[in-house]
């Protein structure tokens, strides 16, 4: 067939800052497609009769339709299509793990050249912003119903965006002084510039969502007090309680949770010290414990602050790293050294209480464990020490217990996540209260939180109006 002849298997690479330059600056690493690159990449899409890519998307973006519009040069049409189901395309294009979602389902994936859906999504969103005219979606007539959204991260933003379009009055509460949740305090500038987060937040505000910062639900007002004022409440408070290794020396100076390390840089903009008044330390040797995206973000941040040596200390091997491959490669290119099959067992300080050495143990891989990954097993008497000035603990987070603690009738699972009666709706045990995102699933991805927000918004709308919205699915996929 003619089509076969035309099959273009050259996935267009996205221009990036070269590693030796970017490792010392906080500017965005990936520079985005030019129109020419976007057109060429979009034209590779074979427009299959039964597109499977959509199945891989937690918010059901009509991927072939928007890619097709880019291929046709109709960038306005492309962004309009994206925004039908995704209110945060500039962010998702940057931080979604497309390689395990839409791109994994692409027919060209078998040929190792899936369409670069994420890069195209980012291109369309950035193109719209660069044009300066952001189109407003259709808004339904006011229903008079009042909705409170607690937490302004990806789940909350999705709920707020969906429900305001349906005519409900929405107030979004944020404990910190800037909205965005993990997008603002967690993901670094070089991966997701904060101007993009602010741009998307401005869009949400323009839609009419009232964004209230500096408001700690659970303290400033309890959940029950909110329910006196609002018809329904959505809890999207994320996973913000850092885990520690529970090894000796973790409270030494120079030992940080990844949350502290990243919040100081991203939300507080400490990297600009001393021009900013947020004091930070520039350490020479930094060890990061963990192997996820947050660990990569921490290690790459340390590098950008001028560290001479940065180590990722991970107890399993490269194969088991939970971080996105792209981020692992970026970190490697920037000079981060990976110490696999290594377990920190003790942090040793000097007389002033500052970290000076870390003691680790070598591991080997045994049988697969509950997660399906091969379980790391300690090798006896394999201890060794490394001199170190700072350590960042990036081994995960559980949900913040603040709201459950002051809401006795809100059911919580053993691991601290909020229990939902139905994962398809995010309805909690408490009347008129829904929840979604990391606070329900435990730490996961931006897009899964958005998928959960989408599902909860549908269910909340149905509760408020009795109307069941038509749509492809309302299921939250557990993939990714």
């Amino acid at each position: 067939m003619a089509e076969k002849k035309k099959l273009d298997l050259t996935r267009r690479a996205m221009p990036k800052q070269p590693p030796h330059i970017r490792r010392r600056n906080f500017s965005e690493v990936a520079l985005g497609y030019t129109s020419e690159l976007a057109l060429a990449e979009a034209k590779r899409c074979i427009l299959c009769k039964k597109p499977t890519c959509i199945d891989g998307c937690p918010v059901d973006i009509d991927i072939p339709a928007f890619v097709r519009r880019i291929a046709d040069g109709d960038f306005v049409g492309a962004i309009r299509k994206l925004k039908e189901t995704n209110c945060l395309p500039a962010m998702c294009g940057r931080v979604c793990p497309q390689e395990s979602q839409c791109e994994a389902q692409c027919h060209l994936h078998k040929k190792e050249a899936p369409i670069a859906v994420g890069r195209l999504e980012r291109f369309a969103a950035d193109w719209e912003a660069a044009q300066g005219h952001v189109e407003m979606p259709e808004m339904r007539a006011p229903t008079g119903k009042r909705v409170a959204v607690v937490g302004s991260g990806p789940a909350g933003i999705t709920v707020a965006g969906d429900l305001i379009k349906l005519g409900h009055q929405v107030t979004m509460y944020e404990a910190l002084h800037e909205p965005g949740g993990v997008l603002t305090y967690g993901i670094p500038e070089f991966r997701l510039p904060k101007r993009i987060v602010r741009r998307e937040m401005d869009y949400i505000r323009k839609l009419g969502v009232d964004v209230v910062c500096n408001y700690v639900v659970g303290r400033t007002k309890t959940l029950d007090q909110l329910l006196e004022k609002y018809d329904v409440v959505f809890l999207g408070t994320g996973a913000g309680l850092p885990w520690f290794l529970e090894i000796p020396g973790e409270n030494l100076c120079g030992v940080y949770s990844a949350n502290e390390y990243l919040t100081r840089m991203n939300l507080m903009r400490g990297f600009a010290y001393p021009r900013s008044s947020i004091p930070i330390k520039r350490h020479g040797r930094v060890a990061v414990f963990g192997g996820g995206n947050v660990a990569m973000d921490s290690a790459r941040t340390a590098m950008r602050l001028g560290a001479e040596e940065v180590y990722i200390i991970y107890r399993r091997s490269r194969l088991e790293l939970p971080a996105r491959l792209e981020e692992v490669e970026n970190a490697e290119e920037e000079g981060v050294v990976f110490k696999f099959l290594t377990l920190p067992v003790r942090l040793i300080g000097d007389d002033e209480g500052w970290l000076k050495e870390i003691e680790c143990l070598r591991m080997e891989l045994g049988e697969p464990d509950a997660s399906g990954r091969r379980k790391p097993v300690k090798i006896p008497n394999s201890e060794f020490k490394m001199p170190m000035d700072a350590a960042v603990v990036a081994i995960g987070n559980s949900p913040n217990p603040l709201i459950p603690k002051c809401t006795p009738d809100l059911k919580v699972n053993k691991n601290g996540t909020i229990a939902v009666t139905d994962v398809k709706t995010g309805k909690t045990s408490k009347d008129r209260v829904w929840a979604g995102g990391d606070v329900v699933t435990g730490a996961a991805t931006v897009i899964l939180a958005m998928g959960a927000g989408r599902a909860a918004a549908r269910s909340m709308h149905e509760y408020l109006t009795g109307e069941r919205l038509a749509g492809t699915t309302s299921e939250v996929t557990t993939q990714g």
Partner: protein
Amino acid sequence: MFKVAKLQRMVPNIHLMEVEAPEVAEQVQPGQFVIVRGAEGAERIPLSVADWDRKAGTVTVVFMEVGASTGRLARLKAGDSIPTLAGPLGKPTAIAGEGQVVCVAGCYGIASMMPVARALHEAGAEVTVVLEARSRFLLYWEERMRAFAKRVIIITRDGSSGHRGHVSGLPEILSQAGIKPNQVMVNGCTFLMSRTSGALAGLGVPITVSLNPIMIDGTGMCGVCRVTVSGQMKFACVDGPDFDGREVDWKELLARRKQYMDEEAYLCHRASCAREA
């Protein structure tokens, strides 16, 4: 934005700020704190609440000017606005309804002790307030305390008022006055709290201290405020700020509080030559 209703220097380096924050004022309890940012781009600093007026919708904090961010706060005037006042945060202080309670306070802690001592008195406890300062001119709110305290004991380092010495002399002072407390509360700098906890541990009664480590969010997210209490890792922002001073690892807390001292000093030095308008 939150409007500053009043800013007043209490004694050298210690300032009182009253801020309009009706929802916080409505909810706040003795022993809780708020996170304040004095300007865009400034640090988030935890400050214990010193008083409130639920009707007027105001919250009062008293702070010491120690670094760049508190320096900026101190230069505010009534009518100015601050971008952040979030709270009330932390667990309220557990208020005993009976017995003898000795409340030891110094420095900015005198202010945050006031609502605690007042609540203790209102709940039915017999309250002895001990105020500690380097010299008489650094004392404030003595009269406010006398309004409800059964007695107020003053200790100054130079002897310019009350007993000469410092809190390590407390066991003797208390026994001479015939005071046998069922509980001790301490508010002030880390040094005062650790010293008092050590000096009064022999009484064998709970010593409630209100810890003041570095914080960012104040809601349990960043973990910078972690302290070791009875060998366990605790977050002062959500597990505290009150702990038993006999169980706190003070050496660790003192070291952690000083972590950014050099950077703070540099900021102040910079600000002194290129001070913002």
